[in-house]
């Protein structure tokens, strides 16, 4: 294994377990006496439940419990990360295709499946609203019971909330040209290769819950409330998830599994099928209308944006997604005036939740595409147009908020260089360039405890969830760097609320910055203790001693941390313990409840060609450059950015939910929902990062991992447009959609000829 130092790329911590197959994901955990659970859902988008007969199901040999809403405490507990709107099991009505109405637990998977099929639900299918137009129609059925939002004037509509951000006076701002267009972004699903899995087991007078959850402490808090147990009696064990991307952030079916476990007094496990994950989590679809005002000197005058997000039947974290996603919609530009109105619109569909990018990709698709239109109308180079208007480092681009925290022009120029912007293009090739920006965390709280053991080895306790982004390795590198241990002598313990101190959540690319800083502070605390030890041992004043990177520097010589530690601990042995806390308190008056701790900034540039006969898009070159502050692990940074870029190609080229005319999802599962395979990669994909040590994290790091996904669509559609003249404003750019745009272009050209 190579050097552990920060800035190196050692083997991933936890990598051994992953390549050997020995790592235990939740579905690999088995408890003695466990039962297997299966959810019961209806094959319709929305239904009134008239009655449920569980008698046949209960008689299947091996079945231990069958639960419906009637078997739960009354009124049925409701929960959710933002609002307590979601019942543990459907009450009176199923509000989307896939909402569970009952659950079964049995000795075997087969028995549970058989029993689930035998639960007889009498229901009446109801009309469902599953498009923005339908949900916003004044005559639309209400998705949510208005009684859940007393006093809220919007409760009589399917609009959950309206978020308004603006400055200046858009209507008074002088613009020589106004470009106005509408864009749409489809509903897509996370499709982590590991389906969600949950196990609940009674533990004395408390409960242990295993979950693929990204936010173990948040889950713990909600379970504690639902089951009226103190936090100390709710243990959440969260093994490293097999991919999360936001889809495992929030509580899902843990409550119903826990109810069954407590009812029967035995562990109960539920592993979702892939189809069930599509019915559990997705990204909000959106329709975005953009009016961009520009001046003939190539400067931006205003952005006037309305963004409607189609969220699901329960809010989950979708309102926050709408709020945060739309907040920076005007982009990282010098913008005299802006008006952004974003709405979350409830619908009879799978609850939308957090998904890499968190509401930003939808508006970015629209706003960056519209900027291209504006540049074209002004006859200004699209890269030059962006550079000219980009906020400079230290400038606020949202007047009251965190200023630009990077040399963003450097990032954009580098992307331009890498794609060969401005150099001659092959016939039939086109290039596009787009910028993505996303707010980092606006509030946060991460504790870490670091233990320097008697032999110099280290244990780091950090409650972050490592779902592949490599948090374990980053924290191990920091501890190894600060305490002078080699990486193979650092153990990182995560994912157990009973052992590891509190971490608010793993989201918004925060962990390197927030938890990283906590790990750093904990190490610094240990370094202070070592300084004291060295002072006492050597009769030297503390102020004259420095400790860094595993070395204790006395005025006249240097000692290793291990030498001081051994001598200082003495024959009783022991360890040094350091605690670190990083806190970012809420600012209740702020539109996001807090200013962004940093920004993720990315520039993506693409060169593509199009098969004019079929509409197939071939990406010749895809470059992605992110402003990361400091790459604590360069290889992991590259992996995250390239992974994000390819994931972005998914919703750009091929991914979308397909609904039938009643609102049922038609393409559940892997056969008809297509994600990029190894054969769907750009001919060349190249990622780079800019490091100016200007982030708030350890060694100047910023968070990253979402940036490279944000603006893929706009860059690719721009390349397609330059290559062919075809205009697409709705994703995905499937071959058929591109083909239609090409034929539309042909018609317009023919008309143009006819009219001359």
């Amino acid at each position, binding site marked *: 294994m190579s050097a552990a130092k920060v800035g190196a790329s050692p083997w991933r911590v936890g990598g051994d377990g992953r390549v050997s197959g*020995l790592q235990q994901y939740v579905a690999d955990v088995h408890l003695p006496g466990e039962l297997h659970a299966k959810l019961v859902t209806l094959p319709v988008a929305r239904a009134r439940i008239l009655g449920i007969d569980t008698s046949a199901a209960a008689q299947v040999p091996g079945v231990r419990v069958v639960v419906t809403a009637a078997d739960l405490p009354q009124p049925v507990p409701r929960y959710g990360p933002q609002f307590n709107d979601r019942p543990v099991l459907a009450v009176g009505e199923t509000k989307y295709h896939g909402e569970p109405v009952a659950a079964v637990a049995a000795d075997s998977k087969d028995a549970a499946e058989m029993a689930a099929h035998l639960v007889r639900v009498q229901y009446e299918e109801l009309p469902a609203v599953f498009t923005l137009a339908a949900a916003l129609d004044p005559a639309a059925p209400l998705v949510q019971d208005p009684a859940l939002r007393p006093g809220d004037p919007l409760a009589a509509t399917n609009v959950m909330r309206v978020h308004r951000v603006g400055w200046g006076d858009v209507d008074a701002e002088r613009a020589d040209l106004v470009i106005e267009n509408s864009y749409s972004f489809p509903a897509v699903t996370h499709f982590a290769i590991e389906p969600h899995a949950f196990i609940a087991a009674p533990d004395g007078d408390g409960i242990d819950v295993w979950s693929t959850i990204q936010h173990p402490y948040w889950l713990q808090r909600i379970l504690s409330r639902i089951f009226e147990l103190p936090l100390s009696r709710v243990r959440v064990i969260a093994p*490293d998830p*097999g991919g999360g991307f936001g889809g495992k952030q929030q509580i899902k079916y843990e409550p119903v599994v826990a109810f069954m476990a407590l009812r029967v007094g035995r562990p109960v496990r539920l592993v979702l099928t892939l189809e069930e994950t599509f019915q559990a989590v997705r990204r909000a679809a959106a329709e975005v209308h953009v009016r961009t005002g520009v001046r003939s000197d190539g400067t931006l005058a205003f952005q006037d944006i309305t963004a409607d997000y189609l969220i699901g039947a329960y809010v989950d974290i979708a309102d926050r997604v709408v709020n945060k996603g739309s907040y920076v919609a005007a982009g990282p530009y010098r913008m005299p005036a802006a008006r952004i109105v974003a709405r979350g619109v409830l619908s009879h569909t799978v609850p939308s939740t957090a998904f890499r990018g968190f509401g930003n990709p939808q508006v970015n698709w629209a706003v960056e595409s519209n900027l291209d239109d504006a540049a074209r109308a002004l006859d200004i180079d699209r890269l030059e147009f962006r550079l000219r208007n980009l906020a400079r480092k230290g400038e606020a681009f949202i007047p009251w908020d965190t200023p630009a925290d990077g040399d963003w022009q450097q990032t954009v120029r580098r992307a331009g260089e890498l794609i060969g912007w401005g150099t001659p293009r092959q016939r039939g090739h086109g290039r596009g360039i787009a910028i993505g920006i996303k707010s980092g965390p606006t509030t946060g709280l991460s504790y870490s405890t670091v233990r320097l053991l008697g032999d110099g080895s280290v244990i780091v306790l950090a409650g972050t969830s490592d779902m592949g982004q490599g948090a374990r390795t980053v924290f191990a590198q920091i501890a190894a760097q600060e305490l002078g241990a080699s990486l193979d002598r650092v153990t990182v313990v995560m994912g157990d609320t009973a052992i590891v101190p509190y971490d608010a959540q793993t989201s918004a690319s925060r962990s390197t910055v927030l938890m990283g800083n906590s790990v750093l502070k904990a190490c610094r605390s240990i370094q202070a203790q070592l300084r004291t030890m060295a002072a006492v041992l050597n009769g030297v004043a503390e102020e004259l001693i420095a400790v860094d990177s595993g070395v204790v520097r006395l005025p006249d010589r240097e000692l290793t941390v291990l030498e001081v530690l051994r001598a200082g601990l003495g024959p009783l042995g022991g360890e040094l313990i350091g605690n670190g806390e990083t806190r970012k308190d809420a600012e209740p008056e702020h539109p996001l409840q807090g200013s962004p701790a940093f920004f993720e900034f990315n520039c993506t540039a693409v060169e593509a060609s199009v098969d004019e006969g079929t509409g197939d898009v071939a990406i010749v070159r895809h470059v992605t450059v992110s402003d990361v502050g400091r790459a604590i692990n360069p290889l992991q940074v590259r992996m995250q950015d390239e992974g994000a870029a390819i*994931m972005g190609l998914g919703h750009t080229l091929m991914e979308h939910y397909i609904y039938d005319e009643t609102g049922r999802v038609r393409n559940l599962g892997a056969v008809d929902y297509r*994600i990029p395979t190894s054969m769907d990669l750009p001919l060349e994909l190249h990622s780079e990062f800019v490091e100016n040590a200007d982030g708030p994290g350890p060694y100047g790091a910023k968070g990253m991992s979402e940036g490279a996904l944000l603006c893929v669509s706009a860059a690719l559609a721009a390349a397609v447009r330059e290559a062919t003249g075809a205009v697409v404003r709705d994703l995905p750019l499937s071959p058929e959609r591109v083909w239609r745009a090409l034929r539309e272009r042909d018609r317009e050209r023919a008309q143009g000829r006819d009219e001359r």
Partner: protein
Amino acid sequence: MVDMLSVVMTVNGRRRTLEVAVNRTLLDVLREDLELTGTKECCDAGECGACTVLVNGLALDSCLMLAVEADGAEVSTVEGLAKDGKLSPLQQAFLDKGAVQCGFCTPGQLMAAQALLAANPHPTLDEVHEGLSGNLCRCACYLQITEAVLAVAEGAHE
């Protein structure tokens, strides 16, 4: 009541005799009866490759095979790649090249890559992409996985 059948298979070099219900997949029997949980379950439709194992040297989706069909066969899973606690060159290459993120698709990728290199010791880039196209990776480590496979093919990891 489901019929039971006795099957004998050699799993990672070890002869195993099992009584299995005829309607159980090889995937389930490996994971549950043999407690070899390294092989993963995802789509259950032969689309994602997370359940890839080698049967008589051929890479296939174990979710699409009944356990009884493996009677008399040699089955290789990810747990059999390391020898005496030492990671195989392919496993090491995956770690070196950063071809592992969340790790859930990794066992399937390794088995598919193993079979690919056994049949074609010096594949081109396109052949690697094609040979592994049955293994979905949502973290999209594809570039790193390809690099790892090519590195082993070039003998860089002997």
